[in-house]
């Protein structure tokens, strides 16, 4: 909204980020991991040593070796390549789902928090209804009803995450609704929408940022869970969840690498997102600043 971001802000913020990172090595690791994941998502297809879709019955179920770092799966596909390729899809699912639920949830929650009254009552009941479902089961139902495409998985994940944003946004907006700066903004000639959009909402953002990063991990887990019960993305698409789910059947027979490496990737990603959330909290929490 403001045209220029002054230098002081940049520097102060950067200093702060660097401080938080150096203070807390785990956060630094999380940021590094996150960067790696993004890089792999972007360059995965270039990095993959094999065609992740190409099967070869002759080299099926080979344990990790110099040729196949993560071994091969039951169709002889290179697990390493598939894990790399899957990064993009998983990241996409989580980012899209989280973005969607963030936009809708934040809009609903902000409106409810700002205007209260019947808007709050209606959206409140709506959110309660979603929450009254066991969330994973709701996601299952949605995907089962609409079909298991990537889009539907994203929608389902977005819907079940929506209440969290709506609630956080409502609470954060509500406590600022009559804050001095909001009153001042009204006196400055801002309409209600402007007060909400330019003054209150940006201040309510940091707690939501934390929620976002936690939910990204959640979204991936959710997609994986759907895969496990057969409602995930379609084969032969490489996706961590489905690889773990399929590989799970091979663990007892000793082919641990099928589930292990995708599981590791999954865990690393979720781990990174979760820690990132903590890191963001440190960075955005005004109390952490001097």
């Amino acid at each position: 909204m403001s045209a220029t971001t002054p230098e002081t802000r940049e520097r102060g913020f950067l200093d702060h980020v660097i401080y938080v990172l150096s203070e807390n090595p785990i956060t630094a690791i999380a940021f590094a991991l996150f960067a790696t994941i993004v890089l792999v998502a972007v360059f995965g297809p270039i990095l993959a040593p094999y065609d992740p879709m190409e099967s070869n019955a002759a080299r099926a179920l080979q344990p990790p070796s110099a040729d196949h770092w993560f071994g091969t799966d039951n169709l002889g596909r290179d697990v390493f390549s598939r894990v790399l390729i899957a990064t993009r899809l998983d990241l996409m699912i989580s980012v899209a789902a989280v973005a969607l639920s963030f936009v809708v949830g934040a809009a609903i929650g902000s409106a409810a928090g700002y205007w209260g009254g019947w808007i709050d009552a209606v959206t409140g009941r709506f959110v309660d209804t979603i929450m009254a479902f066991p969330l994973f089961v709701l996601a299952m139902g949605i995907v089962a009803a609409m079909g298991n495409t990537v889009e539907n998985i994203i929608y389902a994940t977005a819907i079940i995450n929506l209440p969290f944003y709506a609630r956080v946004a409502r609470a954060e907006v509500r406590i600022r609704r009559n804050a001095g700066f909001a009153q001042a903004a009204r006196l400055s000639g801002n309409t209600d929408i402007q007060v909400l959009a330019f003054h209150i909402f940006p201040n309510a953002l940091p707690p939501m940022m934390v929620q976002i990063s936690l939910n990204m991990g959640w979204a991936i887990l959710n997609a994986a869970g759907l895969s496990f019960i057969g409602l995930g993305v379609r084969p032969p698409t490489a996706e961590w969840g489905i690889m773990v789910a399929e590989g799970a059947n091979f663990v007892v027979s000793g082919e641990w690498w099928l589930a292990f490496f995708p599981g590791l990737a999954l865990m690393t990603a979720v781990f990174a997102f979760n820690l990132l959330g903590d890191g963001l909290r440190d960075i955005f929490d005004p109390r952490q600043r001097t």
Partner: protein
Amino acid sequence: ASNGTVVVAMGQTINSLDIHRSGTNRPSYQVAVNAYDRLVSFGTKTLPDGSLSYDYSVIEPEIAESWETTEDGSAIIFKLRRDGKFWDGSPITAEDVKWSFDRAVTLGGFPTVQMKAGSLEKPEQFEAVDEFTFKIHTIRPSKLTVPDLAVPVAIVINSKLAKANATTDDPWATEYLHKTPAGSGAFKVARWEPGQQLVYERNDAWTSGPVPEVKRVIVREVPSQATRRALFERGDIQVSFDIPNKDAKELSGTDGMTIHSTPIENAIYCLCPNLTFEPFKDKKVRQAIAWSVPYADIFQTAAYERGVPMWGGSSATPADIAWPQPFPYSTDLDKAKALLEEAGYKDGFEVPLSIALDQSDWMEPTALLVQENLAKINIKATIEKIPGANWRTASLVEKRLPLHLETFGGWLNYPCYYFFWAYLEGHLFNSSNYRNEEIETLTNETLHIPVDHPDYAPKIKRMIEIVWDEVPRIALFQPALNVGTRDMSGYEYWFHRQLDARGFEA
């Protein structure tokens, strides 16, 4: 294991104890096998690998002591054994048989259809001549009638007990029998906890055969196949029923465990191109697909070499009437390409390749391998997973899946029976919408005549030749039923592919 108890693990749920009830699922049929008796049963034979199998060629008495067809062939008369007793001690009479058969043909759904396969269609056909004489008036003479009395559906129910628990709304006592079997079988159901377990208790007074060796059989439902395998390997269960091909392959030869892999009679796993889909109307395209399938890879990765290959037949005309037998196709992409070019699909086309979610263990790898090879002949297949609830409707009822995987196995082991279900237009398992006038005629001509009829073999050969050429169903392999046993013996393979605990020896 010890004290005469055998623990069986299986992956599915038993949802009813009454096979006649609509909605009763396949795994529940085992209750009909173990807890009920039929008029007749099949014999037992030892397979080349030393394991036991039922013997389709031998019909043995069960409740019936003997039977004969009347001279004019219009009826079959069964003499029931006089000492036959239900669990409650009441005698098994012809009335019970009639009531049970009436029930099977009246209730509708699967039992009715299965009875119909043996030309048993309406209650008027069944007659209790006297207490121990039962008569079936046949609609037509058919070789299928007597074997059809040995399938799980044709159970004999304790009609007095059932009727006592029937209501005007529910004259066939479906609510009662759903939870409380009333039979004469080798095992009583001691406890049924849906979703958890079913416990059979031996019927010490079984009259239709030698009393089983084991006292108790506990059938545990273990949905996770990895868990089933772990349980089996650790020896916590004695029987793992219907184990995946991969486990079967890996575990066979392991100390203490016996893996029985029996090819399922009259069953084939197929790839079905649907004739309502424009390119598949052309026989050449279907053949091209048949030439493109990576059979050996599929057999290896999806079947783990359990079962029987159904490709690479040497001649385009069958030498005998064995069914199934290898189709005369193998993997030859050049031939496939040439055929496609001839058909005018040099640049290929796009087609969805559908598989059922609940059969993904074999369908998924198969589909992936098929998809990959189709891509090599420019056919772009996208895999579509269809949930179990939808699968039947989409593939068999609406028959709308352009290209899909399919499996059908006939309980009655005749090629004509297979053709009847899978190649006749409109019939349930003809999910390819295939129609061929000659097949229609030939099937109807052969369905009921005895196998040793002079016309039978030539006609069957002709039928096989036609479907080989036109390939509305591309055979991949004949599946096997894998059952693992340890610390016990007496497992016997049955066409219905359900647990038969009657011969278990622990």
